[in-house]
């Protein structure tokens, strides 16, 4: 790890100002950033701690729904009454993290904005690693890589635990930057980069996510993850389902460079969740999945994750 400056502002305005400096990076729980720095994959000149800003932490009900501050820790959030009662998809995703240490430190914003776990990326080959003009992951070992959205050279998977349930529940994110505040759907935080020079996030310079809001719509919702290890391990497939009178949403995690929304699966659940519609949604969800050279098994796992998430929500 390289030497860096550390600042700990008390207001979001100060934070944005400090983040405008060259080489400054926001620090929340640090569960991802610090390991990137230790591996030499990130070398910020300044860390701007967001955890000391009172406005950014905690969850409370508003007219628009349940607002969750960006530095709210996953562990306490999983215990929140509204999360437990109304949004089991979120509680189940948090439970899937398994590590007590990570649950104690990882924040909502940090979870949404963590960098991919792609082993080529982590080894320093870049987010869209190339080898002899070809995608290094596509022609290399891609057992943990994307089965959707992998037509280009970017085939890493989005690792967020919270993005699938939050997107399924129709949550929005509040983004603050030098030009003020804007609200975007959580799914719109993500993009698929064309090269390693591009970001996988849509945030602008010195922009931070200050919180997310889950609308208080009544829905049947659930998350299901499939992992090799029962303990702390990245899912091989994850799916969140939310269904209400207004329709359904199905979002897959660890499946594509972005959280992957399946309109076809959602359509299959539009008439309500049953064993038959869960099977149909599962089939629909993977109908246009495309295996790379070594990850065909993930298509079946994604299918099962969708089915089981739907059945769990039923």
């Amino acid at each position, binding site marked *: 790890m390289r030497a860096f400056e550390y600042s700990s502002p008390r207001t979001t305005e100060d934070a944005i100002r400090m983040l405008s400096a060259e080489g400054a990076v926001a620090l929340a729980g640090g569960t991802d950033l610090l390991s990137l720095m230790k591996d030499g994959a990130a070398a910020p000149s300044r860390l701007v701690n967001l955890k000391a800003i009172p406005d950014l932490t905690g969850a409370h009900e508003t007219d628009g729904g349940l607002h969750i501050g960006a530095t709210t820790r996953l562990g306490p959030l999983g215990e929140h009454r509204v999360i437990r009662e109304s949004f089991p998809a979120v509680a189940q995703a948090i439970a899937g993290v398994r590590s007590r240490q990570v649950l104690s430190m990882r924040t909502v914003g940090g979870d949404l904005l963590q960098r991919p776990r792609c082993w080529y990326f982590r*080894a320093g080959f870049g987010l869209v690693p190339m080898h002899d003009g070809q995608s290094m992951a596509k*022609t290399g070992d891609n057992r943990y890589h994307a089965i959707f959205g992998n037509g280009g050279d970017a085939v890493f998977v989005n690792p967020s635990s919270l993005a699938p349930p939050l997107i399924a529940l129709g949550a929005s994110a509040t983004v603050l930057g030098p030009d003020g505040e804007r609200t975007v759907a959580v799914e719109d935080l993500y993009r698929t980069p064309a090269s390693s020079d591009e970001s996988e996030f849509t945030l602008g310079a010195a922009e931070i996510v200050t919180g997310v809001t889950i609308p208080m719509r009544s829905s049947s919702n659930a998350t299901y993850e*499939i*992992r*090799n*290890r029962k*303990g702390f391990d990245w899912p091989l497939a994850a799916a969140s389902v939310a269904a209400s009178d207004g329709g359904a949403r199905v979002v897959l995690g660890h499946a594509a460079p972005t959280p992957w929304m399946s309109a076809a699966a959602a359509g299959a659940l539009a008439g309500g969740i049953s064993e038959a519609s869960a099977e149909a949604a599962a089939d629909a969800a993977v109908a246009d999945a495309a295996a790379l050279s070594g990850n065909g*098994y993930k298509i079946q796992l994604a299918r099962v994750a969708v089915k089981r998430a739907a059945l769990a929500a039923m």
Partner: protein
Amino acid sequence: MAEYVWPAAGDRLHIGKHISRLDGPVKATGRAKYAYDVNRRGMLWAIMVQSPHAHARITSIDTSAAEAMDGVVKVHVIQDVGTEIQWAHDEIVAVAATSEEAARDGAAAVTIEYEVLPHFVNERAVDEAPDAQPAQAETTGDPAAAMASAPTKSSGSYHVAQIAHCSLESHGQVAEWQDEETVTLWASTQAISGVASQLGEQIGIPASNVHVETQYMGGGFGSKFSVDRWGVVCAQLAKDTGRPVKLMLDRDQEVSVAGARPSTHAEVSTGADADGNVVAWDSKSWGSGGPAGANSPPLPYVFAFDNQTHMHTSVPTNTGPARAWRAPRHPQACLVTMRALEDLAHAAGMDPLDFFLKNIDKTGERAGTYTEELEKGAELMGWRDRWRPRGSGTGTVRSGLGLALHTWGGRGHRSNCEVLAYRDGLVEARIGSQDLGTGTRTIIAMVLAETFGLGLEQVKVTMGRSVLPASGASGGSTTVGGVSGSTRRAALNAVDAVFERIAPRLGTEMTNLELKNGELRFKDGSMAAMPWRQAASLIGVNPVAATGANPGPGQLNDSGVGGIQMADVSVDMETGVVSINRMVAVQDCGLILDMKLAESQVYGSLIMGVTYALTEERVFDPHTGQMLNADMEFYKLAGIEDVGEMIVHMMTGPGYDERGVIGLGEPPVIAPGAAIANAATNATGVPINEMPMTPERVLAAINGGMA
């Protein structure tokens, strides 16, 4: 003269009891200092620059920028221009600096250029290997004819991935020179005496001037026998700079260069007669553990058949080299053999328990032990009531049972011990052995206390220093037999020496004395027994000293064990996720000194076995030859939630105890993978032939494809 035997069952004070590790509290509270924890005044940190290429020739090295950096004290070229590098992460240059950060910056500033050469890392594709080395087939009888006439036949291909040792404490050491000719090395090693000799030779000073210190160490599993290049470099940097130097491997180095267990791939055909007797075995195997390829696993394993043939091909690869991994070659051989025999049992329509018992005589001299153990294991697993033919299960999650047999030697190594009895009543053992965390310190203490009839608090163990009486490396399950033998003999000799010294002062003959339950007793009843401390006060200012060695007079240890393990697993048929419900391990190892430590060895082995069975493998990038999962994120070790219920039964009593002490480090880690694979096969109804049994591979088997 002392009689060199272990006390009879009725006379044992400590032996066979559940005694906790004496160093448990200092470890649990963090007071135990490992090599990694050693920090010396003025110490430098050393970081090594590694090759990013799996096969390359070094064409230039420029260290000038690093040497000019603040904090960098010395840059040492380990492998110079012109050297051909054979694996990624190999060490080229070491940088010593005043802080870890400065050393890392310095290492990053070293510029090395390479001529990149073609590499080969996919050893499974034996046909593509540039340098495959087939050996001659070893054949007994006429396997072809026996196979041709066998009414029941089976064949399959079985695969065991290459894994790493992944010790929690990485390899490394701190070196500090006392003068021009004397160096102390605080090393994480399984072999303090051996490392002293190796370093002395390589750095040009007498071995006696190398003081290796290892009080506690965080895992080796066979990967820490050598001083290693980094040990020599560390000592050299310390000499060149005149300052202590710490050099510990980073996690990526630890997993990629500091130890691998070779892979094994095998194609096996077997045949049985109408009664279920195995009559023919034919196997071809190949595997790799790096540039030296891999030796043949012992196939068939445990069993010897009248008609058998085996041929092995060693496949060199450009990957970090193999080191002995806990029971070298045995876990791979066990998986191949036990899976093949389970498949043959299935073909014969037999319960594998009956099938293995039917063929148990083909295991040789341990047949009786295996039979007893299989019956005990069956009872603990409820096998007779619960076993169902392969694929009987229905539903999404299906359970199954599997079993496997293993064997190992485990005779005690060469060991020397000196025992001192002081007039304050303390009795001390001095022994140049090392405690890997298995409980060696505790074993030495209890043998010493047993022999003097004292409590454990009345004895002291001084060990972990190479200047003490030499003892063997801790590997191959040789330590417990070695140190218990030397300590017992030294302690018996010391008791005699104490009697010889104090008998005249008590006006009696030494043969009239005995030590029991903390007392000095007079066999003829001429005097009342006196507490040991009172008797010890007669020793005088010079302690009594005596030595003992292993091997030595009397049968205190033996070689050769057989154990059996059974697994109860569930497999999710839709996801391929294998879950361990229960493992049963039944193990013999002669006379058990500390039952708790023995059981702990088996528990640890089962956990390690579950890990290599389900999650653990080295993954290499075809493009670069680099290990892709040189971390603890995707190099997956089992967690507590993965291991299931573990039931351990140690065979003791007549038939076992009188053999003396036999090692236990390797045996119980051999069979878990095979038992789990057989159970997964039984559960799913399809052969699960690959370790680790990841969802990917299990699904491929269930879906009918070859993984």
